[in-house]
């Protein structure tokens, strides 16, 4: 470039792809995840005892939008869609996405592939809380909220807080091992109490059992509105920790030498994941396997960086649970199977197929 006769140095060319081998969210898989979620949701809305066609669903979805206002959808069909099927699909997506994201986060902070959202006793605590409420205060509510989910939420939160406090006091063990053992102890203790109450109160055993196996029974949007804020905050916090979860994979000591406090990261991520897990467990029961199978499937297919694993677990976890729930309410219709049975029954063989067909070393 010539300005007033002086040649200025050319600006340095912006380097393209300066560093190779950095993890990037693969667009193909992100689109595939969105498509899977959309497909599962469509199926979930269409399938049910009352036949409702795709056209009707589209019309019903467009009805609240002003320009498409004049809808010819039968009010009873619209009511089924808006107060039963759509909220159930949305709840399923929230629960599945939350459990898979929390599972991935737990695996990251504990550097343990077997970690799941219930590692520190969240499930045992929720089960105990809900069992206590069902056994001793059936049908009661507190400030307008049904007591069972509230007790489940408090139980899960207390169990994890207890495990964390206990694990922190264990010295001489690696920090994460102390926490995991504390979680095992708390879960065993809570399970013992829960089983005792369940056996002592046999008239409630069916209700307790069905709660433990998990279900997405919902009428209207109450469940969705209850869990939404917790899931939103929890997922947002975990997403913000993607880089730090990758950093933790070099171990507590080395990450400390890089100026990152492993303890602080672990505490914040565990609190966030527990908050979301406790909320969805309180509404949907302790649905198993989603938190393990989904993150591992994503890892096997796409790679191990949490920058990729966390967002894709969110999408595929949501799609998977919506699909599992659709199966749960149709396989033995009109009866409904517990969703935990379906997640394990579909999830485990699917996981084995993925594991066998890819590099198992990726775990």
């Amino acid at each position, binding site marked *: 470039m010539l300005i007033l006769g002086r040649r200025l140095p050319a600006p340095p060319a912006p380097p393209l792809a300066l560093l*190779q*081998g950095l993890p990037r969210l693969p667009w193909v898989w992100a689109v595939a995840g969105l498509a899977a979620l959309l497909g599962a949701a469509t199926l979930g809305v269409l399938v049910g005892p009352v036949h409702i066609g795709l056209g009707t669903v589209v019309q019903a979805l467009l009805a609240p939008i002003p320009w498409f206002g004049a809808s010819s959808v039968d009010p009873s069909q619209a009511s089924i869609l808006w107060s039963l099927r759509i909220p159930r699909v949305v709840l399923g997506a929230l629960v599945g996405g939350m459990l898979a994201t929390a599972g991935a986060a737990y695996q990251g902070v504990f550097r343990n592939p077997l970690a799941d959202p219930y590692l520190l006793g969240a499930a045992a605590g929720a089960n105990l809380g809900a069992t206590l409420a069902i056994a001793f205060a059936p049908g009661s509510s507190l400030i307008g909220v049904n007591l069972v989910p509230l007790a489940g939420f408090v139980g899960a939160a207390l169990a994890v807080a207890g495990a964390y406090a206990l694990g922190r006091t264990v010295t001489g063990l690696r920090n994460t091992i102390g926490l995991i053992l504390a979680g095992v102890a708390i879960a065993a203790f809570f399970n013992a109490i829960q089983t005792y109450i369940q056996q002592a109160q046999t008239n409630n055993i069916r209700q307790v059992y069905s709660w433990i196996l998990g279900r997405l029974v919902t009428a209207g949007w109450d469940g969705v509105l209850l869990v939404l804020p917790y899931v939103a905050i929890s997922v947002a916090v975990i997403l913000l920790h993607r880089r730090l979860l990758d950093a933790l994979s*070099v171990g507590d000591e080395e990450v400390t030498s*890089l100026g990152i406090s492993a303890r602080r990261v672990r505490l914040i991520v565990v609190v966030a994941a527990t908050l979301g897990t406790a909320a969805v467990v309180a509404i949907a029961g302790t649905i198993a396997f989603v938190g393990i199978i989904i993150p591992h499937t994503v890892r096997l297919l796409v*790679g191990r960086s949490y920058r990729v694993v966390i967002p894709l677990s969110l999408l595929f976890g949501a799609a998977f649970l919506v699909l599992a729930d659709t199966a749960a309410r149709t396989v033995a219709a009109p009866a409904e199977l517990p969703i935990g049975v379906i997640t394990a029954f579909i999830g485990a063989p699917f996981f084995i197929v993925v594991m066998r067909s890819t590099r198992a070393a990726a775990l």
Partner: protein
Amino acid sequence: MTKVELRGVGIAYESEVVVSELDLTVSSGEWLALIGPNGAGKTTILRAIARLVSYQGEIQIDGKAVHNLTGRELARRVAMVMQEPHMPDGMSVSQYVLLGRSPHLTYFGKEGRTDHRVVADILERLSLDRLAARPLDHLSGGERQRAAIARALAQQAPVLLVDEPTSSLDVGRQQEVLELIDALRAEQGLTVIAAMHELTLAGQYADRLALLVGGKLVAVGAPADVLTEPAIAIHYHAHVRVLSLNGSGRAVVPVRSHLPSPPGEVVP
């Protein structure tokens, strides 16, 4: 250019005293090797400077007490290469080296152009650029050691702590890694503190040696002053010859003290 000072440093694990009453000053741009028999406390001292163990006494970096710095501030001044760095399977070399930029990022921060530029330059300098996308578990021993050094360099800290940089490397890779550290020290004015058990290598690469025995400093000085046959006999219980190399350099050669008895012969 940065000076490291230890004054009256004592370190204990549980109730066992590992290092006691240690006074040591490492000048700016100097290579100091910590030598001594196994269990002398060499690694522990490095870990204390990086504040990975608690200690009594005072450790200062350019006059600033280490215990007053935040984790990030310390990591911008001191980088450590562990003896056996943990290298997560599946992580690429560039992603691993980019972790070294952590002290320059905020808690929720994301690496930017500058960080990528710094890492790209380091990878090129350490001849790792062609391996940037390779998973760590596919690297050879020498390449892994270079990747670990690259991550420490990415911290752009003036003090480099290195724990047994040559263990598990063959003689060619040992020279390569030590020449690299020495060249980087000259180029970037690094202060290097290395725990070394290979006396011959320590005696040629380090400016000064600090000989530790049982957590106490017994000698400090130039290789020619510290690596003497009587000192090694006393502190290592070893029979050696010390050879003079390249002027001030020293090589330590183990010598078998007794000839083996012929088979069948009974030694009284």
